[in-house]
């Protein structure tokens, strides 16, 4: 895979929004479990309220992340108004607020009075459409939704578009909303812990909303290079590859059924980091860990200062390579290799 670079980052997380806030959170300025809610009020800095009014919470979160990533890359959103930009959105559960809002209308009202707006916003690709509309992006736009497989495929799709010449820049947005239904289901499944312990034996899943936007492109600047995205590796294969990297970032979300695979990955890695305790459990958290990995590789946050979920706490020289792993199922791992 030829070099695709991460040019800008737009984290929108309960522990912080934007690169600076996330860096502060990583440095330990935030303590305690991640908040349950996520404000997107900052979107008004980029879009007039009248434009935001009909966009649902997922769409607002994704849009804010997109704007932040563009700003972080030192670009103007006007530069996105072209068919040379693309958008890939990855989400496991889609716009939950709108999904359940439509059902609320059905249950509380009646069949013929359901909300056309809630229906429209519940369609999973509408957040991507909202970004395309707000920015004027007329290149390829895609939404992927395959649970833990989502993030890796989305990243590889974005890289492919750039390498194949379909687009010069691609906004990759990976995120999840939380909802009372998800919170209830997680609780019934044994999760709902106050704080995630990523590699623990027991379930400590704590669903939180959040989103990571990565602006990808080619060139010589930016945070890091995407060296490779490998999907459907066995855990042993992924562990062997991850062992070659200076540090392994685990998208571990506190699920008991994935912890064993992560521990195998961690056992062979030089250093291991997992940050779900900071931002909560999200099915597409590979994007968040890739964001943090990019910050570390660019020297924008101190690796030694990062709160670790596992692994030795040793100060280290500058890191040159990172692997980001996401367990997709039993003995199936997506591995993203990044270079500084």
């Amino acid at each position, binding site marked *: 895979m030829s070099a695709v670079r991460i040019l800008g980052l737009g984290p929108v997380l309960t522990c912080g929004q934007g690169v600076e806030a996330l860096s502060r959170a990583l440095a330990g300025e935030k303590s305690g479990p991640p908040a349950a809610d996520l404000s997107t009020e900052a979107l008004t800095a980029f879009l007039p309220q009248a434009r935001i009014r009909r966009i649902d919470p997922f769409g607002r979160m994704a849009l804010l992340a997109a704007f932040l990533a563009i700003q972080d890359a030192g670009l103007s959103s006007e530069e996105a*108004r072209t*068919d040379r930009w693309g*958008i890939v959105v990855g989400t496991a*559960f*889609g716009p*939950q607020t709108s*999904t*359940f809002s*439509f*059902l609320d209308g*059905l*249950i509380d009202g*009646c*069949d*013929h*009075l*359901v*909300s*056309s707006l809630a*229906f*429209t916003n*519940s*369609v*999973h*690709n*509408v957040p*991507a*459409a*909202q970004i*395309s*509309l707000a*920015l004027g*992006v*007329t*290149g*390829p*736009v*895609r*939404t*992927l*939704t*395959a*649970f833990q*497989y989502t993030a890796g*495929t989305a990243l*590889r*799709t974005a890289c*492919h578009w750039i390498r*194949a010449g379909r687009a010069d820049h691609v906004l990759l947005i990976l995120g999840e909303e939380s909802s*009372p*239904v998800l919170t*209830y*289901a997680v609780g*019934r*499944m044994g999760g709902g812990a106050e704080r995630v312990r990523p590699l623990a034996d027991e379930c400590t899943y704590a669903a939180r909303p959040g989103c990571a936007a990565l602006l990808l492109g080619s060139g010589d600047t930016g945070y890091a290079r995407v060296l490779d995205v490998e*999907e*459907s590796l066995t855990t042993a294969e992924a562990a062997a590859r991850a062992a070659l990297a200076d540090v392994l970032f685990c998208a571990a979300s506190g699920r008991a059924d994935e912890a064993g695979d992560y521990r195998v990955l961690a056992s062979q890695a030089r250093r291991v980091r997992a940050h779900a305790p900071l931002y909560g459990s999200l099915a597409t958290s590979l994007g968040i860990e890739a964001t943090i990995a990019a910050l570390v590789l660019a020297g924008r946050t101190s690796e030694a200062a990062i709160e670790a979920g596992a692994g030795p706490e040793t100060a280290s020289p500058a890191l040159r390579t990172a692997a980001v792993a996401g367990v*997709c*199922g039993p003995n*199936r791992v997506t591995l993203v290799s990044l270079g500084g």
Partner: protein
Amino acid sequence: MNPQDPVVTGLGCLAAGGVGLDAVWAAMMSGRVTCGPPGRFAAAPVRKSPVFEVPAGSWRPSRLVAETGSDRTLCVEFLLVALEEALDQAVLRPGGLGGRRIGVCLGTTVGCTLNDEEFYRAFKKGERPDLAAIHRFLDHNPAVYLARALDLRGPVSTINNACASGTDAVGQAAEWIAEGLCDVVIAGGVDELSRIPYLGFSSLLNTSEGPCRPFDAGRDGLNLGEGAGVLIIESRASAERRGVRLLVGIGGYGCSADAHHVTAPHPQGAGLERAVRQALAGRDPAGISFVNAHGTATIPNDAIEGTTLARVFGAGVRVVGTKSYTGHALGAAGALEAVFTVQGLLAGTIPATAGFQDADPACVVVPTREATGVPRTYAISTSLAFGGGNSAILFEALP
């Protein structure tokens, strides 16, 4: 052709017209339209509209996956039925797929949305409902299900690009092959009828109270449908090595956004034109055999799509609207239409566009009025989606 060029080696489908491509194609070629009121759910929408439902009992639960079919979603059941047919044609033994570098790339909408009305009703009442509905949702994302059930080792992707999902899934699968990511991809799309989109589309006032009439001057909306379309896509080298028949090549794929409106297409079809020209990949538009159009039978879609196709290919281009036989199967639509496009090229003939009587000058193009012979050159299938996505996939006859 290069050894890594994507080719199609297997096709499978089921839709309202039948189970299996032979049955569905025969129904289409005879002009048989099978739509009616929803049979599996009751609904009182603002506008009642017939649907194209796969008749209950018309298919046998698939034995492709050893587990019992009782808890499977209908989406997964449809998918397995279509997949069995496609694997059979591609001479791929299901038992021999495990551990191989085989990708899965499927489009869906209903199949990846947590829309269980009964569960949510109980949840709202504070009844602490059983999680069976949640597990059913978590266990039946179409691509993830298939990858796990068949122990596949290639990339896994479920695409939800609304109405263009199936076309994008086929296009992405072709790109995986061209990239060398895997040897074979199970590609396509699947969706089942559900009260949610039925009522949702009705709330948008874009459904027809009668059978849909693509490109007709009197068209007044779409009908929803369901089904599955599966294409086995592999590299030319892989297919030749296995000694199987190469049905068609995939010669191009385009996708482009309108950035115009969430539910309305760009008035000049700008995004669609970009997608079609990308799919053409430099070919002379005059050489096209036919276009299997998105053709939802809504007033704006058909006018904008027809005008755009006429601009690219000329007003005389052969156009067929196969949603008149399947309804709009949402995430499955593009995949079903891809299957029909390949079949049209192979058969050298395409069906009449059911329901079409009077040409609409606003559409410019005139769809097929009867079964029509077509040259075996190349054909394009187009999709326009909610959210302003446009996709086009080009299949090419092989010597």
